[in-house]
């Protein structure tokens, strides 16, 4: 058995790594995964950079920021597969909840336009929104959704708050709203400080959330272990996407050595059945989090380009250069090479127009066809990585 050290941050979307070890998918590939619980996203990046862990559970935009030179000088990092889509929830504090209800908002939990417009109507002054990290899908979702609903730059303050501290930050009045990965939004609801307004998937139907990130030096020097790890994690993701397995997954994840929370809390996000308010109202969010289905794990180069263009715009970098640079760190080549032997469906192209699928669609794959899941944005936004950059 080869031992690989993996770093993860306690969230439900660490499930593919934990399940790969706990249910023997890693052992089938001759691997033992030494899972190291981390306290901060920057810790994942630094420990990976220093070679103290072999692979990391990371926010998908993190390797993009790193590729653009916006992090510390560490060896090159590549995202070899996406670990999860969705899994985030948007919450507001009790005061905003109250005002939204009085304004007639129904908390239906499925209409980003209605929720955003209602929020714009009742928010007074600057809206302080907690997100887990500067480079995060949550930050990108908030920067897309709120301006599309009438918020202007001066109305918004995005504040970094570590996920386990999100509820506390809201209780102290440091943030008015937040977007965070489960189980930390549900945790805030149970503490009686928050009401859930939307799942991330209501804003963007298939938002890539976490990725498996390795040093490029490692993928070059140890292709056998890289492939074995990717296959083990991919099979764990496939197991996780069977709805009958989500309850068991919640049990495993919640153990003291992993999330150390009541299993019922992790189960909400994993089953997509969430308690949204202190009144105990329940909402079903189909496809709240996906690990494998509909090519969820494919590291589309167009996703790297999408995040790169947005981040470049905020940091005064050339968008065209940024996109070219970031796409080199999303390793569709390794995905094809290492997952082909596992029978993983492989799309014909490695880049696509993001946000173009209003519903699921069968497309040509390397062998036969495969289903790609709907990935539309609530406002019809599409991103074509090949289109000229406006103003460039």
């Amino acid at each position, binding site marked *: 058995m080869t031992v690989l050290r993996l770093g993860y941050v306690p969230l439900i979307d660490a499930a593919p790594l934990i399940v790969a070890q706990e249910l023997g998918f890693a052992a089938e590939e001759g691997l033992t995964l030494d899972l190291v619980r981390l306290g901060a996203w*920057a810790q994942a990046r*630094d420990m990976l950079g*220093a070679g*103290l862990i072999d692979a990391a559970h990371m926010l998908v935009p993190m390797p993009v920021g790193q590729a653009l030179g916006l*992090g510390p000088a560490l060896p090159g990092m590549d995202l070899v597969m996406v670990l999860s889509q969705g899994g985030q929830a948007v919450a507001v504090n009790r005061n905003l909840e109250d005002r939204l209800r009085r304004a007639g908002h129904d908390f239906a939990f499925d209409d980003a336009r209605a929720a955003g417009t209602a929020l714009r109507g009742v928010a007074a002054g600057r809206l302080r929104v907690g997100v887990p990290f*500067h480079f995060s899908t949550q930050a990108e979702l908030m920067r897309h959704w709120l301006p599309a609903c009438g918020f202007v730059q001066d109305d918004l303050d995005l504040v970094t708050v570590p996920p386990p501290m999100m509820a*506390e930050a809201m209780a102290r009045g*440091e943030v008015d709203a937040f977007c965070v990965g489960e189980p930390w939004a549900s945790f805030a609801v149970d503490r009686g400080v928050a009401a859930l307004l939307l799942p991330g998937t209501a804003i963007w139907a298939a938002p890539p959330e976490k990725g498996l990130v390795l040093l490029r030096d490692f993928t070059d020097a140890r292709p056998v272990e890289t492939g074995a790890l990717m296959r083990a994690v991919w099979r764990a993701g496939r197991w996780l996407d069977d709805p009958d397995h989500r309850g068991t997954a919640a049990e495993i994840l919640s153990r003291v050595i992993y999330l150390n929370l009541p299993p019922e809390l992790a189960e909400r996000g994993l089953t997509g059945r969430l308690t949204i308010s202190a009144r105990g109202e329940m909402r079903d969010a189909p496809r709240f989090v996906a690990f494998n289905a509909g090519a969820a794990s494919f590291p589309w180069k167009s996703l790297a380009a999408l995040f790169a263009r947005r981040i470049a715009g905020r940091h005064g970098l050339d968008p065209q250069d940024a996109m070219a640079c970031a796409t080199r760190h999303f390793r569709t080549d390794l995905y094809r090479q290492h997952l082909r032997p596992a029978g993983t469906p492989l799309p014909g192209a490695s880049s696509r127009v993001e946000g173009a699928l209003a519903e699921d669609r069968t497309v040509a794959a390397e062998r036969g066809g495969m289903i790609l899941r709907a990935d539309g944005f609530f406002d019809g936004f599409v991103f074509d990585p090949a289109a000229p950059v406006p103003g460039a």
Partner: protein
Amino acid sequence: MSKRLLIVVVEPDSARAQPIADGLREAGDHDIRIIAEQSGLARQVADLRPDVVLIDIANPSRDVLEELALASGPAERPVAMFVDRSDEGLTRAAIEAGISAYVVDGLRPERLKPILDAAIARFHIFQQMRAELAATRAALEERKIIDRAKAVLMKARGIDEEAAYALLRKTAMDGGKRVADIAQQLVMAAGLLGR
């Protein structure tokens, strides 16, 4: 004579913060501040405009400092990330010791090195203590799982505790596994079977 540096140590546990501050004082004539209260951390740090910020690598509040390092424009940036394009060995040593440092742009490496060396030495001690604590916790956790597995066996097979443990141990030895791992599998299987 260069000006005194303002060094901020972000550490909620005063039993840890104090020795770090002492170590830093020995390393040079610096102004040292400890921030224990982590709410509003970004504002606290920005207000102090320190030359160096030291924080445990695993402290979740690190991610708040990352934002601070990135958010402001280059001209007004209060702290830049410590980036060791100059000294990779030092960065690595810091990360290995479990420490991360944010350093104001333009601070000369020869001024930074003694500070980091002192911090690294103190953090190493904490790292060791933390590893020992984690090992103790893991052992406790394993004991609990083994107890639960024994209970499952005693109930299912009508045997006493000693026999249950012997059975676990034999199964582990035959399979080349640890008793705790066998116990874990048994408890999980029993859970699936609703026992």
